[in-house]
């Protein structure tokens, strides 16, 4: 198969059937072993399922990397109140395009993961919160879900176990902030998607005031495989602290952009030069953002030393985030791209906290002024000062995400800013 591009260095578990439309049909999915994990999980006590996931060391794939099994174990037991599992499919981080692929190529894998997750935390209802732009993607998911209901995998008395789990697909309406877990819950409840103050954490007071757990699409999609094969099986890939495989979304100036499933700890430079077929047009590498636009930019030298796991990225001063590798070659205008990222955050700030609302708007104005050649050298100091006050001072981390590209780009590509400010020269412009 040649789903847009594949590499023989991949370990394809999640993405095994990417590129095969037959996988969307429930009969094919079942024939290929689908819903086997669900059958096994229903025969286990919820606590056993949680323990299996804990043993696998799986870490949340939405960006924060929190261990999934531990998160599930926070859910209270025997409360007599409804519990909710929410699947976060509000994928909108610039650079990330894995959840859409997971849903549109293998919707049943996600449904099965949701059902196992719901069983583990004692939830009776799962909400899959998809971003509003996913019209086509959710058509595939809705069709798969209807088939799953018809075959008795979802709904009342699943496979004769007496367990009832419903799944509802919910569409957002175009707000990046709804990808933040408590913002998402507010949005699900029909409110503005503004994040909530924590604590209380969702496991205590989540959606509709009830105990809730929220997991990313990729996290839930791997669950059936872990339950089927056991926690130790998953640990054969990756590193001690970051076990397993992960989808890497590579975009930007490479020959073969796309989703690649690789063991965690994979060297970043191999991903670019080998798996993705090298830089487009043979140009030199200038900078990489390894985890989506919210994490600090690294330069070519740091990229060569970077291994793609949670700890390896921290070691070179950035984060793995949701593993959205954005590759930039020597022709990239860093100032322009940072300005575009800041514009994004200024647009998406929910306006709840002052440092973020004001900070993102003013940062965007200053960045535009510099890009248009009207900046001063003092602006760089002001930018550093303003963004410094945006870190750790707000309810959610959107504000920190504005600071990351601005601060890291000024630190690492100061020459480019200065060339624009002093001489109006666009470094890197073709």
């Amino acid at each position, binding site marked *: 198969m040649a789903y847009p591009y594949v590499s023989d260095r991949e370990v394809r578990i999640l993405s095994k059937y990417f590129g095969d439309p037959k996988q969307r049909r429930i009969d094919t999915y079942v024939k290929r072993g689908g819903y086997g994990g669900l059958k096994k999980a229903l025969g286990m006590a919820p606590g056993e399922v949680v323990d299996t996931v804990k043993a696998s060391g799986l870490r949340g794939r939405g960006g924060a990397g929190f261990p999934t099994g531990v998160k599930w174990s926070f859910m209270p037991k025997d409360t007599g109140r409804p519990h909710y599992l929410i699947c976060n499919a509000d994928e909108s981080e*610039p650079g990330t395009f894995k959840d859409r692929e997971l849903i549109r190529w293998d919707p049943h894998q996600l449904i099965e993961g949701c059902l196992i997750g719901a069983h583990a935390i004692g939830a009776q209802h799962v909400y899959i919160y998809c971003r509003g732009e996913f019209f086509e993607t959710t058509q595939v998911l809705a069709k798969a879900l209807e088939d799953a209901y018809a075959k008795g995998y979802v709904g009342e008395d699943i496979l004769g176990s007496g367990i009832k789990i419903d799944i*509802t697909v919910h*569409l957002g309406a175009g*707000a990046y902030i709804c990808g933040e877990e408590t913002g998402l819950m507010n949005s699900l409840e029909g409110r503005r998607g503004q994040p909530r103050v924590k604590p209380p954490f969702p496991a205590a007071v989540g959606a509709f005031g009830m105990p809730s757990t929220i997991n990313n699409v990729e996290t839930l999609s791997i669950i059936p495989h872990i339950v089927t094969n056991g926690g130790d099986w998953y640990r054969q890939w990756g590193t001690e602290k970051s076990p397993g495989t992960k989808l890497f979304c590579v975009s930007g100036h490479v020959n073969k952009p796309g989703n690649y499933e690789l063991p965690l700890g994979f060297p970043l430079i191999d991903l670019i030069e080998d798996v993705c077929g090298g830089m487009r047009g043979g140009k030199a590498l200038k900078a990489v953002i390894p985890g989506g636009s919210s994490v600090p930019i690294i330069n070519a030298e740091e990229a060569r030393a970077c291994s793609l796991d949670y700890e390896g990225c921290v070691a070179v001063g950035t984060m793995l985030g949701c593993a959205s590798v954005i590759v930039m070659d020597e022709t990239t205008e860093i100032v322009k791209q940072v300005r575009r990222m800041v514009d994004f955050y200024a647009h998406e700030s929910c306006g709840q906290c002052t440092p973020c609302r004001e900070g993102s708007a003013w940062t965007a104005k200053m960045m535009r002024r510099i890009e248009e050649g009207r900046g001063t050298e003092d602006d760089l100091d002001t930018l550093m000062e303003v963004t410094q006050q945006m870190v750790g001072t707000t309810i959610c981390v959107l504000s920190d995400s504005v600071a990351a590209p601005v601060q890291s780009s000024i630190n690492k590509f100061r020459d480019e800013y200065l060339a624009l400010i002093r001489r109006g020269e666009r470094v890197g412009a073709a």
Partner: protein
Amino acid sequence: MSDVPFKNPGWAGNTGEFHLTEEQVRGKDFVGERPKHAGHASGSATMPYMLPEKNPDAKLFEGDYQERFEKILSRYPTKQAALLPALGLAQELRGYVSPESMDRIAELLDLSPAYVRGVATFYTMYNKRPVGRYLVQVCTNISCNLCGADEVRDTFLSQTDTELGETSTDGNFTVIEAECLAGCGFPTCVQINSEYFENVTPDEVPKILEHLKRRGGS
């Protein structure tokens, strides 16, 4: 149906080719096909489309739409939670969320009109004023931008003879910039009504526009 090469590998199944015809893209047995007006309450009912033909005076939540609205209500523990899907349905019918639609929804869900207005204006996908038959959303975020999204956007604007956010004089096109459409590996990603067009280059823009005009109101 069309000779425009769609560059959307996701819908045709994997042929390893980016150039596909619309028939290959959607096909007759497209597995995602769903009934437009109902379907199972777990999914279909809650999902709005963006239709080319809009009727600003359409009655809200009658007939099939009434059925969909009730299915939506049945999926949530509170009435308020139906607000986002309900606004989506109103937009599907009328093309935008007018103050009258918001007031009607507030009434149906026992919410205050001011609250509904507050929520509707928070989300960018609810059009607060009428848009053209085709709403063209060009992603200009970093990954697409690195691969020339600005030129694609400018070509859409010059070909439709509009400014960002305005509707062309024939009422066909409104071009806006979108914030990341999650198609970063297939730049430039453009969403037109409910469809994604991927790997769009400036040369293809005229062909896409011509195709949309010819397709009419389907």
